[in-house]
């Protein structure tokens, strides 16, 4: 029977090649959508590495360039004044804010390996307040003051990417090509700090230290408020800041509101895209349904004949679905040969093999289900005719 199916498919290669092409295109579309959906879902599942509840950021926006002598004092005064507010539990410094796309990156070559990472700066106790997890080594501390090295913390991804099989504690990641470069000594490994939010990729990420007593140029202050803090906090702090240093502008926003904004900004295009994508899939599905339906109804005659010659309705169903399954697999295989190039050539960094296979499997299940339905219903209708009706079907 299998041989008979192959024969039928081969002898109908003209009409089948159209279906196969349509199936291959449909599969590519479905695959692309699965990749996007699965990737974003996976990213969303990965913990941020910190807590955003009750966290607020005060952003200092100077209207002139930083003055070494005066501005550090002003900053210290601001820190002192904010700390005085009754609802403030903790106060910290953080260079690049969470849930925004402000980024600093560095790239160095160490022992022939190119090391690329995102960086940020915070003070000694910030990691604990943010609720970050230490995997190895230690956090920053007073022992790092007045040393001949700069301490750094790296995330687990940094270790997994660049030093998967060794301990990184004590390693120097300063650029060796710069003469007399100050040592950058890794003192600890933390799990994660996904600065760019839930839908962002996992990237190697490095913290350098900021001394809250001698902060230098720092424009971001993070405060942790006590639960149920007063609504007036925002306004009150803004007034204090304005009176302390009227030459700057300020903004205050909770991490939560920044997160909401960022999720909105990510999900709105994603939603629009998925609506377009759903239409695309519906169109593809309908097109496919039409072609396959047509393929089956145009064979009502043949089905009537086979039944007249002694085929059971079941064997007709098996034949139709078997044929469709084979044709679908041919279409999918063609699409596969194209798609497999993507991870093989590393076209998209994000499309690794595991994402590739999972998306492939999801798309395959989708396509086979679709083909099954497209084969089942028209087959059902065609076998509901008596053989003599089917033979006279126009």
């Amino acid at each position, binding site marked *: 029977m299998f041989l008979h199916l192959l*024969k039928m498919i081969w002898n109908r290669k003209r009409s089948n090649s159209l279906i196969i092409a349509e199936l291959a295109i449909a599969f590519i579309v479905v695959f692309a959508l699965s990749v996007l959906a699965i990737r974003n879902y996976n990213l969303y599942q990965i913990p941020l590495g910190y807590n955003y509840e009750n966290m607020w950021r005060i952003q200092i926006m100077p209207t002139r360039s930083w003055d070494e002598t005066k501005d550090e004092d002003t900053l210290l005064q601001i820190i002192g004044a904010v700390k005085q507010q009754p609802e403030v539990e903790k106060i910290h410094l953080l260079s690049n804010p969470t849930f925004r796309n402000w980024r600093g990156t560095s790239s160095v070559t160490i022992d022939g390996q190119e090391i690329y990472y995102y960086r940020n700066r915070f003070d000694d106790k910030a990691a604990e307040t943010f609720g970050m997890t230490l995997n190895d080594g230690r956090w920053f501390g007073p022992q790092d003051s007045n040393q001949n090295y700069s301490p750094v913390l790296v995330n687990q991804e940094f270790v997994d990417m660049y030093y998967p099989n060794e301990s990184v504690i004590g390693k120097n990641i300063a650029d060796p090509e710069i003469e007399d470069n100050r040592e950058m000594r890794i003192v600890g490994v933390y799990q994660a700090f996904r600065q760019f939010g839930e839908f962002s990729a996992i990237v190697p990420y490095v913290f350098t230290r900021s001394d809250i007593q001698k902060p230098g140029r720092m424009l971001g202050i993070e405060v942790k408020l006590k639960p149920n803090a007063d609504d007036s906090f925002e306004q009150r702090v803004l007034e204090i800041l304005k009176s302390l240093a009227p030459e700057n502008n300020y903004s205050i926003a909770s991490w939560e509101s920044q997160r909401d904004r960022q999720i909105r900004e990510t999900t709105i295009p994603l939603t629009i895209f998925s609506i377009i994508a759903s239409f695309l899939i519906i169109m593809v599905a309908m097109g496919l349904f039409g072609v396959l339906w047509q393929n089956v109804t145009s064979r009502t005659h043949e089905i009537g004949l086979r*039944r007249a*010659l002694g085929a*059971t309705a079941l*064997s007709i169903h098996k034949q139709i679905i078997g044929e469709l399954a084979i044709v679908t697999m041919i279409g999918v295989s063609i699409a596969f040969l194209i798609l497999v190039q993507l991870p093989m050539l590393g076209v998209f960094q994000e499309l690794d093999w595991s994402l590739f296979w999972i998306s492939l499997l999801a798309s395959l299940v989708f396509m086979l289900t679709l083909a099954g339905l497209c084969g089942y219903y028209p087959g059902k209708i065609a076998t509901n005719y*008596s053989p003599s009706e089917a033979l006279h079907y126009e």
Partner: protein
Amino acid sequence: MLKLNNISKSFQTDRIETIALSNINLHIEKGEFVSVMGPSGCGKSTLLNIMGLLDQPSEGNVAVDDKAIESYQDKHITGLRNEKIGFIFQSFHLIHDLRVIDNVELPLLYRNISAKERKALAAAALEKVGLKARTHHYPTQLSGGQQQRVAIARAIVGKPEILLADEPTGNLDSHMGDEIMKLLESLHQEEQATIVMVTHDEEMAKRTGRTIRVFDGQLVH
């Protein structure tokens, strides 16, 4: 070997009920060659379809080998259709996407027969109808007469007990029609095939052993 008892058949379309057959009693004996005649639309095809278990009668019953068909459920009658009945249609009904040999093989596909044996039986049937040389052609490469001979080979390949032919020469010119008739006659004489054939041609009807006349859904004597 084939008995129709008080068969009636009506078709319900929209609000019109067409009575195609009423109260038919008929007995076909083993080895008979019977012709069925009557004006167009009198119910000949309907009669043949009911004999061939392609259609269910509205009333009455069909008995094959003295066993009355009780249920027209798929699983009850497909086996009978496959093994006991060979159908020949006016418009051949070959599958154009299959080669001649694969068309002839079709009924055997629904039996438990190995591919090799199917091939052998199909080749033998093709030889009987004189089309051995056309085994690997496609139906569209053949003349109408040849196509009908392929259809006959397909009808006899499973060695059915009865051949039902619905105007087998209706789509053919008289020369080709005569060849088909000769083929049916030789199957009847040499293989003792039981044949029921619908025809419009008095001359052909005369060459059969018995002629049944249908008028307005009833048998006339």
